[in-house]
């Protein structure tokens, strides 16, 4: 296990260096100067500004400096917001994004588990059919379509919940549902298959023979054993959530990294693009590593195999 974690960490660092290098050199290849209105400045003024941002040094020196700073979470200053540190800008936006992602994940997992278990217990009934239709909808329809439709029906037409913004819990409900639909559907489907398997196994038969009540069998024996493999799904789910959140944040105008990322791309603020890109990659890889470790802890068979 320890060796495995070290190996994974090495890959993460390597990947990050690769991403940082790629973004850095691509930015250097971009046409135009980072100085707005460069033609209006005199040569000496340009030199001064370039010296201030370290742009006068050879590219290789700039690269090493950037790489070194990036590993310390220092991504330079924003071009768009005068002299604001990119790391501060990103850090400010991290909170709402993390909260939204976590809420969506928890909502999706809990609701999905419940629905999946219900479908498995009432197998081949109308409930089961209804839930599997729901699961297909949740998996197929992109979160931003849900987001836009929820915003229209619930926010605008019915006026039950705020249309947009990030003030108070009520405002977080719609984006959470929109974003949580995909984890909900995935986990519901997964739990249903697992539960059906488990419910047919010998130890459930034994539990029934011992005279345990139906509830006890479902909650204590069947569901618990079906939950273990669900952990493997959290990684891919987190990846989807990160991608989805970028648009959902935009639709509901949530001040998260996703909307900042899009804004920075649309305004060509390369420093922020790079900063958010790196932060995103890092978050993703850490989540994937954590779920793998978690799985190893929960399921001893994985640990032994290593």
């Amino acid at each position: 296990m320890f060796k495995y974690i070290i190996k994974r960490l090495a890959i993460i660092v390597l990947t990050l260096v690769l991403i940082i290098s790629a973004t850095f050199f691509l930015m250097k290849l971009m046409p135009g100067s980072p100085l707005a209105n460069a033609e209006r400045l005199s040569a000496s003024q340009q030199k001064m500004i370039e010296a201030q941002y370290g742009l006068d040094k050879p590219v290789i020196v700039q690269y090493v400096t950037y790489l070194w700073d990036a590993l310390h979470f220092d991504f330079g200053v924003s071009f768009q917001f005068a002299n604001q540190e990119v790391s501060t800008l990103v850090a400010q936006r991290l909170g709402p994004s993390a909260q939204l992602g976590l809420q969506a994940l928890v909502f999706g997992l809990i609701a999905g588990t419940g629905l999946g278990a219900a479908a498995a217990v009432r197998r081949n009934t109308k409930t089961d059919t209804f839930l599997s239709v729901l699961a297909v909808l949740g998996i197929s329809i992109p979160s931003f379509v849900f987001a836009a439709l929820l915003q229209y029906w619930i926010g605008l037409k019915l006026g039950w919940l705020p249309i947009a913004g990030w003030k108070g819990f009520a405002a977080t409900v719609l984006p959470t549902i929109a974003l949580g639909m995909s984890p909900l559907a995935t986990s519901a489907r997964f739990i249903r298959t697992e539960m059906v398997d488990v419910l047919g196994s010998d130890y459930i038969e034994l539990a029934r023979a011992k005279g345990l009540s139906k509830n006890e069998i479902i909650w204590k024996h069947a569901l618990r054993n079906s939950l273990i493999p669900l952990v493997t799904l959290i990684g891919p789910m987190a990846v989807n959530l990160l991608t989805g959140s970028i648009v959902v944040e935009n639709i509901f105008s949530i001040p998260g990294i996703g909307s900042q990322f899009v804004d920075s791309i649309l305004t060509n603020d390369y420093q922020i693009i790079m900063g958010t890109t790196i932060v995103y990659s890092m978050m993703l890889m850490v989540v994937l590593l954590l779920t793998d470790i978690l799985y190893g802890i929960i399921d001893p068979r994985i640990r032994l195999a290593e």
Partner: protein
Amino acid sequence: MSEKVNLTADDFQLLPADRQTDSDKILKPSVSFLKDAWRRLKKNKGAFISLWVLVFVFVVAFASTPIANSKVTARQDVTVQNLPARLPGVLGDIPGFTGEGKLDGTKVDQYESAGVSDKKNYWFGTDQFGRDIFKRVLYGTRISLEVALIATLMDLVFGVTYGIISGWRGGKTDIVMQRIIEIVSSIPNLVVFVLLILVMKPGMLSISLGIALTSWTSMARLVRAQVLTAKEQDYILAARTLGSSTWRIGLRHLVPNLSSTIIVQLMFTIPSAIFFEALLSFIGLGIPVPMASLGTLLNDGQKAMQFYPYQLVIPAVILGIIMIAFNLLGDGLRDAFDPRTKD
């Protein structure tokens, strides 16, 4: 106890001298597997309906090129701004397709107030520039499908080749190639897209390339795993013994035997490509303005949502139908190709 049989010379037939040449040849192509899969697919109602829905969508989207192309859909007409959807004849009584809109709480025939003749119907209404949404949806669907198909094709060619080489060569080549996959697949998709958009101009090619660059790893992994087991099989050994070249074994023996895995994987690549295209276009990084895709239509619709909800709902429903159909078909094909689900 067996009966005694009297054989005479007439019971035997002299074979031609060159019979050696094709005694090993299998004359009929083996179709039983595909037929079997087709039979099982037909049993799966959802998947079978999805197949026909997709055939319909593809035919309509591609056959409509003459009436819905970038020229026609870009035509603006400010006199028919934001007209609601209206279907001709009796169909015009379906709620939502009557051509009526609310003005100060009372229903008004928007077509009449815009001075449009009774014969002219915009099936899905018009947008803020007076463009026919029906034609834009046709065109946008086609662009979305094209992007998805180009991406899937690149994914297919590259992923399958990579997987076959990695699995076939084995040893150090395999280890190096797998490490590369591990690194590439841990780069978030969006990063790849953004980097590509920074370098290339946003457009069909850059989006397709971005999608292909992020999705080939799972294809390569799957193919490699299959090749690893397939290359130990006797038919490969037989082909080798008979002196087939590596290329021939790869193309003639491995690819057909991997086809079910590849097809199923493709069925999941296409909707994810459509999804990413829509996502990128939705946030304004995708298909550039004069063109349209389902993503850009959704984006426009979301902006006009408050007063003209049909502009959002129609592309959303169509995107939803396409995505659902692909997912159901993918599930159905996976079950149909999997011999373990044989009933």
